[in-house]
């Protein structure tokens, strides 16, 4: 038997084509049928305009794209032995902005994109989670919009600012601005404590063992209870391989393929189009079924995202939960909400570290248009996982731009008989509803995939 279903509410839509055998999914194809051509749009554009274009790849993780672009452009300077000096303040302001965007996204994702589907599995009626009307939905959207104000203080607005630029950032916040940012973080922390986990953040961050799951109260407890009632800790498992490309003050790069290795070489990244559509029809194979490409690291599929970051960084609570429940749907969702607490704490610390007397921006001595030719790469950790940009410039224009988004790592098509990370996670499911939940657990971004 074959079923074809459209999944909405994943920042766009995808088609889930399942093959069933003995009431279980034996094969699955995840089709992204839209293509927006950003890599083509960027071609021949003036180099710095990339800072305006790439945030518009995605209305949710635009600042991650911005940071990847600015780092790729700064990498061009480095490759010309003209490495730019960035002040600590500029580095902090960039990372803080990105973290705020991740915090905002995680809050919205839990309440708007996964809980409405999770509560359908509950024996109780949990109307508080109803979209647009429920108390919890409204509270979460309110907190998210308050939180993002702290990014607007340094970026001018959100979504879609280009406040990072080679050499630093464009804004120069006052101490009072930083205090306001702290206030917004504190409001979000209060929400985390009062509503999401029901205990103080400091106590939550002290969790070390999976038994601590029972200490969680609040809305996350609803998720944990429903999960164990429905054995979500047993479904959605994939290769249990994890990848983190971005390196920052908040996250560590590395990969786990049975054992943890904290070294990443971009040379090992490979992007394939065997099962993907192509703008050049002569290159499209008969098997092609999606606009998403396939991303491999050292010839293997890896999972990227909050679970990968927690495992690579060995954050004790999630690591122990992961030891028990592996890369299940349960662990994946829990890791994302754990990361929310971790980032709230971390981002407050980072704001505190800013020395307002430092420069925000140091003008590069040479302009990128002075280079006849240049290449650069940048990778950052976005809400949904590792994001990679690879740019090539010629005489002040972009000659090639390649973007690999987190959703491509997680949800691209399998190749050579090997299932991709999400395909492997879905195969074996005994209901379509569960398969859709597993898909959702990756925090799918259709617009990013269809860049």
């Amino acid at each position, binding site marked *: 038997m074959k079923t074809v279903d*459209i999944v*909405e*509410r994943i*920042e*766009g*839509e995808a088609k889930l084509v399942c093959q069933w055998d003995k009431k279980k999914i034996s094969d699955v194809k995840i089709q992204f049928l*839209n*293509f*927006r*051509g*950003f890599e*083509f*749009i960027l071609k021949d*554009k*003036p180099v*710095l*305009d990339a800072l*305006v*274009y790439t945030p*518009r790849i*995605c*209305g*949710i993780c635009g600042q991650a794209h911005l940071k990847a672009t600015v780092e790729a452009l700064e990498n061009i300077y480095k490759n010309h032995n003209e490495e730019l000096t960035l002040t600590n303040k*500029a580095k902090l302001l960039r990372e803080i902005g990105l973290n705020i965007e991740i915090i*905002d996204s995680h809050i*919205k994702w839990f309440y708007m994109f996964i809980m*409405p*589907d999770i509560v359908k599995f509950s024996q109780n009626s949990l109307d508080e989670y109803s*979209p*647009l009307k429920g108390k919890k939905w409204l509270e979460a*959207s*309110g907190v*998210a*919009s308050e939180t*993002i*104000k702290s*990014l*607007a*203080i*340094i*970026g*001018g*607005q*959100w*979504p*879609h*600012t*280009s*406040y990072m*630029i080679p*050499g*630093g*950032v*464009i*804004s120069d916040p*006052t101490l009072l601005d930083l205090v306001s940012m702290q206030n917004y973080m504190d409001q979000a922390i209060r929400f985390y404590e009062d509503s999401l986990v029901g205990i103080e953040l400091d106590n939550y961050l002290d969790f070390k063992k999976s038994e601590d799951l029972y200490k969680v109260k609040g809305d996350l407890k609803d998720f944990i209870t429903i999960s164990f009632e429905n054995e979500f800790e047993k479904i959605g498992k994939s290769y249990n391989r994890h990848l983190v490309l971005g390196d920052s003050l908040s996250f560590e790069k590395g990969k786990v393929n049975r054992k943890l290795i904290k070294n990443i070489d971009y040379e090992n990244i490979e992007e394939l189009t065997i099962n993907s559509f192509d703008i050049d029809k002569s290159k499209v194979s008969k098997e092609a079924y999606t606009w998403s490409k396939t991303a491999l690291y050292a010839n293997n599929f890896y999972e990227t995202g909050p679970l990968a970051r927690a495992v690579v960084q060995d954050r004790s609570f999630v690591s122990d939960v992961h030891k028990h429940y592996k890369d299940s749907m349960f662990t994946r969702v829990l890791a994302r909400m754990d990361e929310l607490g971790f980032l709230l704490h971390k981002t407050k610390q980072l704001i505190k570290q800013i020395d307002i007397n430092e420069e*925000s*921006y140091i*003008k590069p001595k040479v302009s990128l248009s002075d280079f006849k030719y240049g290449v650069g790469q940048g990778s950052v950790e976005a809400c949904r996982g590792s994001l990679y940009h690879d740019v090539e410039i010629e005489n002040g224009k972009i000659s090639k731009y390649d973007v690999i988004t987190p959703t491509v790592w997680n949800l691209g098509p399998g190749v050579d008989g090997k299932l991709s990370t999400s395909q492997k996670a879905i195969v074996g499911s005994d209901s379509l509803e569960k398969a859709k939940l597993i898909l959702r657990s990756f925090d799918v971004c259709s*617009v990013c995939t269809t860049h």
Partner: protein
Amino acid sequence: MNSKIKKPKIVWLQAITCNGNTHSLLSANANRLKLFLDSFDLVYHPSLTTDILLDDLLKKEEDIDFLLVEGAITSNKEFFQISDQTTSEVLKKLVLKSKYLIAVGSCASYGGVHKKFEQNSDILGLEEALEKKDILSLIHPIVNLTGCPVHPEWIFQTLFSLKEYKQMSLDEKGRPKEIYSYLAHHGCTRNEYFEWKVEAKSFGLKEGCLFYGQGCRGPMTHSNCNKILWNDVNTKTRAGMPCIGCTEFDFPRNNMLETKKNIGIPDEVPLGVSKRAYLSLAGVAKTFKIDRLNEKIIK
């Protein structure tokens, strides 16, 4: 509020988009968002509602009061399809049931960033994508709420005023006059630097005007950003990022982060000001070296 009065029905369609307008809406002031949700019936939004799928919506007979469209439109199915149809087909079916049609953001208005994908030559804004026969049910001209993204307040103000007064006055590009007759420049905290022609020495400073070197299009761009502020707290130009003219027909332009100059003077001068007038004034202003404007604001 009298709950017996039927709330106007809203459908939000996403076409070729980055979803930035949706997330701008979700970033609205929480009280305003709540009032909006209490006052209207948001029947369908692909990212937010769970009751019905697009396919069900298309099959329903029910009328739509306000159809809001985010993203550009194409009739090319190879590049873009939603629920097995082109965005153009879906749009036309929905418009025929609607009273008002509102383009949310620059892509829906004119094609925007997505129109730059030239390999698909058929990417259009709403007005271009629809023929006369498609819009027979509309009781008002299409409203273009431009901006990349749109400001959530523009959506609320438009919906509430159409609900109350049934019509609003539009400029020649289909934008509400009361929003887009202002310039982004109006209300910028850097205005004094503009008056005295004191340019920002570089990015990353509180001081100086971004019109002279950083490409700011505030004096030529129709929007009231600096009147109503973004996320309740700031604007790009206040923070130090040049206005990139995202509410205009020709967005995105080339070289958005630098000012094209001719003998040291910006090539384009503020809207409606003659080059001669501008040059004379700039010349005079520059002869006065005002210490306060050349020092740090906070010493």
